[in-house]
């Protein structure tokens, strides 16, 4: 394994010296996300396996090339799971790719314990930066404020800060009990319900709305779930149907075959229905909305920005449309300087971070 690290380090160094671009790609399951990269391929999958897993610590350290499915199976065998229910988008998904993409699934905004964004679970990373240096940030303990918290910044960095080698993640116990309710209503009613539940101490671990149906998942102890079933509306889904349903939400099954653009919209809580043309999947109490649409990017971005949100062309659609919205000039400059601190020659995944210049 160390030989592999040395090889990659040398490869990055010589690419830097020659100003040659490198394209970091493992399973390629999220290759669609972000701008296209042209460069020499660097495949981290050779670096795989569990480095340390002590279930009583609720921490796991794995090599970045480990298959995400393998990690999830290991955790499940010990009654644990990743807190953020990440999408795979294919069997080949790796843990490194999951962190670099930084995408969380249905459990993201749950009130239940320890859930959150991908970065909320990242405790430490080892990586090779754009100079070919091996760096180790953070650690394997849940509370650690020594040095800047660089590990969390790797989540969602799309391979532009370094080649991830090892990642330490906080994990959580699987809930003792889960139940899913389905309720037919309008989107406006669904949004009001979701936001209402958010304000109450209910064990809601996911909400979704599509095609006239509101689904809510409850996770927790027997008593908590039983109590919530009494007060929330809707019919209970059979267990396997519920599992399939949340898997479909997590993997965005509704948009799998479309040729139109799939947009990922992030919004503040309490935004009413957007009334944009297309097919929608609402999640996270209305704070994430997926939209399959042919509407022009300009229209979508303007509308979402006016509501205090952000819009990403997630998959498909017009490839000339920048996938990401622009940051403010001050933030864009800071982001560029942080990237330069890790990758001064801009050889790691150049073009992947493609933000709208005119937005």
């Amino acid at each position, binding site marked *: 394994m160390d030989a592999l690290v040395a090889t990659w380090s040398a490869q990055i160094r010589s690419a830097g010296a020659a100003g040659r671009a490198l394209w970091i790609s493992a399973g390629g399951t999220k290759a669609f996300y972000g701008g296209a990269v042209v460069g020499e391929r660097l495949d981290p999958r050779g670096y795989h396996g569990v480095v340390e897993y002590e279930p009583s610590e609720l921490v796991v350290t794995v090599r970045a090339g480990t298959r995400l499915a393998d990690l999830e199976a290991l955790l499940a065998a010990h009654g644990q799971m990743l807190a953020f229910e990440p999408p795979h988008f294919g069997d080949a998904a790796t843990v490194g790719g999951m962190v670099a993409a930084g995408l*969380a699934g249905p459990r993201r905004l749950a009130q239940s314990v320890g859930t959150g964004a991908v970065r909320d679970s990242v405790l430490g990373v080892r990586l090779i930066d754009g100079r070919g240096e091996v760096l180790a940030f953070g*650690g394997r303990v849940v509370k650690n404020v020594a040095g800047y918290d660089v590990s969390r910044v790797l989540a969602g960095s799309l391979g532009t800060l370094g080649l991830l080698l090892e990642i330490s993640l906080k994990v959580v116990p699987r809930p003792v009990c889960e139940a899913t309710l389905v309720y037919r209503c309008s989107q406006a009613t669904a949004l009001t319900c979701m936001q209402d539940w958010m304000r109450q101490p209910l064990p809601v671990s996911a909400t979704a709305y599509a095609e006239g149906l509101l689904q809510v998942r409850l996770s927790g102890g027997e008593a908590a779930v039983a109590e919530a079933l009494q007060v929330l509306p809707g019919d209970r889904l059979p267990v396997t149907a519920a599992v399939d349903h949340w898997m479909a939400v997590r993997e965005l099954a509704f948009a799998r075959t479309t040729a139109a653009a799939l947009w990922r919209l992030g919004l503040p809580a309490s935004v009413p229905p957007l009334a944009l043309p297309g097919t929608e999947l609402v999640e996270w109490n209305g704070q994430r909305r997926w939209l399959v649409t042919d509407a022009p990017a300009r229209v979508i971005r303007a509308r979402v920005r006016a509501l205090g949100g*952000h819009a990403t062309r997630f998959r498909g659609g017009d490839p000339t449309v920048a996938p990401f919205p622009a940051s403010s000039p001050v933030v864009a400059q800071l982001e560029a300087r*942080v990237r330069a601190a890790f990758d001064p020659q801009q050889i790691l995944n150049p073009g992947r971070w493609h933000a709208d210049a005119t937005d």
Partner: protein
Amino acid sequence: MNRGYAGRGAVDPERRRLVVAHLRAAVPGLAVLDAEEAVAPFECDGLSVERQRPLAVVLPGTAAEVSAVLRACHALQVPVVARGAGTGLSGGALPHREAVLLSLARLDQILALDPVACTARVQSGVRNLAISEAAAPHGLFYAPDPSSQIACTIGGNVAENAGGVQCLRYGLTVHNVLGIAGYTVEGEAFAFGGAAPDAPGLDLLALAVGSEGTLLIVTEVLVRLLPRPAARCCLLASFATVEAAGVAVADLIAAGFVPSGLEMMDQAATRMVEPFVQAGYDLEAAAILLCEADGTATEVAERVAAMQQRLQASGATRIAASRDEAERLRFWAGRKNAFPAAGRVSPDYYCMDGTIPRRHLGAVLTAIAAMEQRYGLRCPNVFHAGDGNLHPLILFDANDADQLARAEAFGAEILRTCIAFGGTVTGEHGVGVEKIDQLCAQFDDPTRVAFLRLRAAFDPAGLLNPGKAIPTLRRCAEHGREHVHGGQARFADLPRW
């Protein structure tokens, strides 16, 4: 503590005069303190063994004034040390003789509280507890609850990534802050994060949290509020040895419990606080655990019963459950007042803050007990056991130079032990000036160089809180030599991660 801090020494009166005159001209109406007696109250933070007078103190009343101060200081290339309430325990807000001390305490307005979105937008000088107080009428609260929450500011919490008892269940500051706004060292406005989750781009919010005033000045914070649990119950469990209590903690977590508080106090700590607080602790136990469940009434009843069973199986010799809210608060009062109690039984105390993997709690506490003998100083332990975050309180008298030296050596050995057990030198109090040398041991050269590059990415001239948080390479080179001389480089062969 840090012998090499360059900010120490007498203030140059001429420099003071020039800088103050410039600030007054550049920011009309700004509150500026420059008389010795006026700046004296700002000469230390919660790490009171370190004291230094600042060049001057400014107390802006608006965010615009903060920006103007930064612009003026940047033009003069005068460094700036931010200060919230000054409760920090690592000397992060310790003044610098050449720097302006920027107090953010007057930015104390709650700007908006949205009970529908469950968020509050507050200025950085708002006290931690004031947020929960404002949220209470809506049935909401702000989860991170440092023991200093009556006094410390949200800006200071963001700068330190502060934790608290409830963080085991609800996350640290970094998990509960949705966005921040403020100014760069040049005085340019920035905003990171916001009410819409998971914006694409680099997560500079995560980087800013815990950056100890070295990257940016924060003037506004958007926090997430959570619904207040309907019921809470606290268990007090006694153990015959600290090792047994440590094992019980690991057992609880391994069994899938996530208590809304899981704290340990050893016998020295319970005996220290009981006379002041009358919490009702078992003073015969070698260690006690405080273990809390929250949720709906049935949920709490269910969890308390299960945790009680688990604690018993792990060898608890006695378990008491709080019967009402008054009793629950009394149980916690002892824990929450441990630091003030240490201040009453000893002229000085030195609070350490290492974190270790939970399974090593027993071994590390035993090692600390051996150190008590070796250094001839008492060291009660009261800490966030569920997170493995230790707070050994080394009791000493700073007027006795020998005791001070022993306390420092004792603390340094505890931190080296934490690193050796795969942990970190600071879980929540920050590096400040205090633990800067220990960072040399925790991170290798290339990683520390990366930290310095990051710092320069935000602050190329190094004007924000110089000498704190991240050691320079030269410092580590010197520290490394000292270490070898002292024969202390005992764990040199262990991986530093």
